[in-house]
């Protein structure tokens, strides 16, 4: 198929929406359009990114308001149909609030915002945003968040670990107190992925790392696999 067309949701208070569009369009040469929060028109996109920032100010609880926006109704339906959805930072928080991913992101252990490059270990390649990566690879990708401590009940934790839904783990220990050093997780089907680190800020060699490219580049392969009839589980098993 031709290169997938991306949509980047713009909430009021989104900050990395423009950077995500820049990464997709200018750096990676992909087709990408902004998707306005008040609309429910997905404009025929093949993949969706929920960007970082502070949607609606995040004065209540990160992502708590965004999940009720019109665009999220459409994104939720898209995800339920197997469409690839990537939530970055605030986007991850929104996916959890929307129930598309298990768990929640709470205040960092040290109660401080943290901005620095972290090293992520790839734990699962059975997702739309990691199928191009190698299991065990280490990626240098920045984090910048105040509420990035992944929390979930013990039963769910055991099940996401068992199902291979942990996609990324902090290689040198979680900077924010996340359970099991979890940096990113996927839905059971692998089409929805949320992570706190910012792959869109790791695509341009001039600005540091290019290790984030593989997450975006995975989508084309994932969609090809789908078109070829391969299921997510089969893809996961083949690795």
């Amino acid at each position: 198929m031709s290169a997938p067309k991306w949509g980047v949701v713009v909430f009021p208070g989104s900050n990395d929406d423009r950077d995500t569009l820049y990464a997709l369009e200018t750096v990676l040469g992909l087709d990408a359009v902004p998707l306005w929060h008040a609309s429910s028109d997905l404009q025929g996109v093949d993949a969706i990114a929920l960007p970082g920032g502070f949607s609606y100010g995040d004065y209540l609880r990160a992502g708590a308001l965004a999940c009720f926006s019109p665009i999220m109704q459409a994104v939720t339906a898209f995800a339920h149909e197997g469409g690839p959805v990537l939530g970055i930072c605030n986007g991850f928080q929104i996916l959890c609030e929307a129930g598309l991913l298990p768990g929640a992101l709470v205040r960092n252990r040290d109660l401080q915002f943290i901005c620095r490059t972290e090293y992520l270990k790839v734990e699962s390649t059975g997702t739309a945003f990691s199928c191009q990566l190698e299991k065990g690879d280490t990626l240098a990708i920045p984090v910048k968040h105040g509420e990035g401590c992944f929390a979930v009940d013990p039963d769910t934790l055991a099940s996401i670990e068992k199902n291979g839904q942990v996609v990324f783990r902090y290689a040198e220990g979680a900077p924010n107190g996340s359970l099991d050093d979890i940096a990113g997780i996927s839905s059971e089907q692998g089409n929805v992925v949320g992570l706190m680190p910012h792959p869109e800020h790791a695509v341009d060699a001039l600005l540091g790392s290019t290790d984030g490219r593989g997450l975006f580049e995975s989508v084309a392969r994932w969609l090809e696999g789908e078109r070829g009839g391969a299921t997510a589980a089969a893809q996961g098993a083949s690795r």
Partner: protein
Amino acid sequence: MNAAATPAVDEQLALDHGLTAEEYALICGHLGRTPTFEELGVFSVMWSEHCSYKSSRAHLRKFPNSGPVVLQGPGENAGAIDIGDGMAAVFKVESHNHPSYIEPYQGAATGVGGILRDVFTMGARPVASMNSLHFGRPDHEKTSFLLGGVVGGVGGYGNSVGVPTVGGQVVFDPGYDGNILVNAFTLGVVRHDRIFLARAGGTGNPVLYIGSKTGRDGIHGASLLASSEFKEESEQMKPTVQVGDPFTENLLIEACLEIMAGEDVVAIQDMGAAGLTSSSVEMASRGEVGIKLDLDLIPLREASLTPYEMLLSESQERMVVVARKGGEGRIGEICRRWGLECVVVGEVTDDRRFTATFGGREVASIPVDALTDGAPAYERPISEPSGRRPALDPDAIADVGDASAALVEMIGSANLCSRRWVYEQYDSYVGANTVVQPGGDAAVVRVRETGGALAVTADCNARYVALDPYVGAQHAVAEAVRNVAVTGARAAAISDCLNFGNPEKPEVMWQFSRAVEGMSEACRVFETPVISGNVSFYNDNQGDSIPPTPVVTMVGIVASAAHTATSAIVRENEVLFLLGGGQPQLEGSEYLMLRHCLTGDAPPPVDLGAEIRTSDLCVGFIEEGWVQTAHDVSDGGLATALAEMCLAGPGIGCRVHVAIDGRTDQALFGESGCRILLAVQEELALKVEDAAAAAGVPLQRIGATGGNRLVIERRSEEASGPLVVDVAVADLRRAWEKTLPEIAAGPVGESAAQSC
């Protein structure tokens, strides 16, 4: 609100507003009558030191503020310079000192918000923020609270608003125990032909109010809080500190930039200090027109606000726009989409008066000129303080002894230790342009439209300024020039934040006038005009003035974003060079203060010509691609600078030899201007040496990078001289990293750091 509720206006009420009896008489003269209560409030804020610059105006004229790069000098919301390819850099620094001392989180947050508005008001998208922070001694009872609050506020606002915070400075000194400094800087980028000014015009054009509703916060922030000394009861002025809402600011940025992309805006200005009043009056004054406001239309948080409160409120995240008649609908539509209030609250008039009505009654009608040009200007008395500080008697202090231990102590001291605890609380990535991240000499932000980049730094060594305001202020400029040079940028222009004590003290005015003269001279020689800035007087607590602190924020231009340098040693076996002829001295040094609690009587001398030659050469090396590691040698001297280069990288050490003719402490920790360290690959070293010789700039090959230790030996005729310093980079890192988190945690039990 009924008219009967306003207090009777008399001289005593004017004094309560911070005006003098003479100023009150002048007001009555301008009006030809007694002012109304509302008018008295308007005069008190417009004539405050903070808004009128009445003590500093005469001195500020000395600054050079024109030149080939200048597109907009002082007098607008921010200055602008040409950065090539039709693009402009817009920037300014501003103080938010007193609010940040009283309420550190909101004080710092709203300082960030205010300076952002000054920049995007010019049509520029903000691309980087910085701040210069001066706190009291590390173990002072309030320091940890203030540090945590200010850094939290800067981050809380800047991170949410979505503009990267890329650098700045953090200083600790007992002189700021009772009056901290929080200076906020923002840089924006815009095309030349899309720069907007705040000049109202066109009789009958509508005046629009955009953004947050008006509340009671910040009333008399500019007049009473910012324009008088701190006293015991100043704590009670907490209600004059505004509260920030970065989410609304984020929307305001996007909406205003979208509005300014159209053709409907005549003039635009944020409501900063003195709120609705000063924004309207300043726009009318610049445009030589009048403005009439209908206060009944002002969006209010609570209906009970009086016209007096509406005129003086400093509620945040509000803008005033003069629109072309008929354009208000399109502007309103954009605001609605971003969820922002947009209301027509008045119109431009041709009577050159500032008029406000409420409930059909005229509550203020003042000639605009009376509020601006008619404000008093003072030639405050100036007198040089009598008695000099004692000269340093070197025989009275022992030499360093164990220099390795001294270096570990230095690198772990409050003023030299790692700033990581601070800058990791700031989002430095958003915007996807940060080429050189915080922690080095200057940060570098790419400009996609030009292929180049901009380097930004904030500098002031207040100890030097205290010893000699003229020379010290020149050092502030020279250090800023070096700091951008070592990243590969040519210094272009500055914005200054002049933080001083009470201008009614002749000694403070002497410091101020000498610093302005020194800075002016340096800016002339460096051809770095002052394009914007701010004066903050009355930085006193219980009668004690802060050390004179003229902070220089510099923007330098990087020709190609692909050619920059950082302070980090990243490769083994590179040649280490010391560039420039600065001669280290102990007087004024961090070492002398830290080890011996002494300052001496004079800062290092400044040689502006040598500074230019040295910095230019360094930039040339980086532009050629010969140098990727360069570092300014400043606070803490040569040994400290070498340690910083090791620590900025992955931990690669170095081995250098240093000529030590006299004292070891002077050679290792003495300070001077005009010294830059470079690491160069061996095959390029000859080119660097030839270029330095051709330029007549001193260059010494002092050693090489490699290993995991920092080793300094005494230069001798032998193959290797005696070791003076030998310390593992890992040990330096431990000392370097632990201090700031300890200061932030507060003086629990044993105090975190020792002070004089």
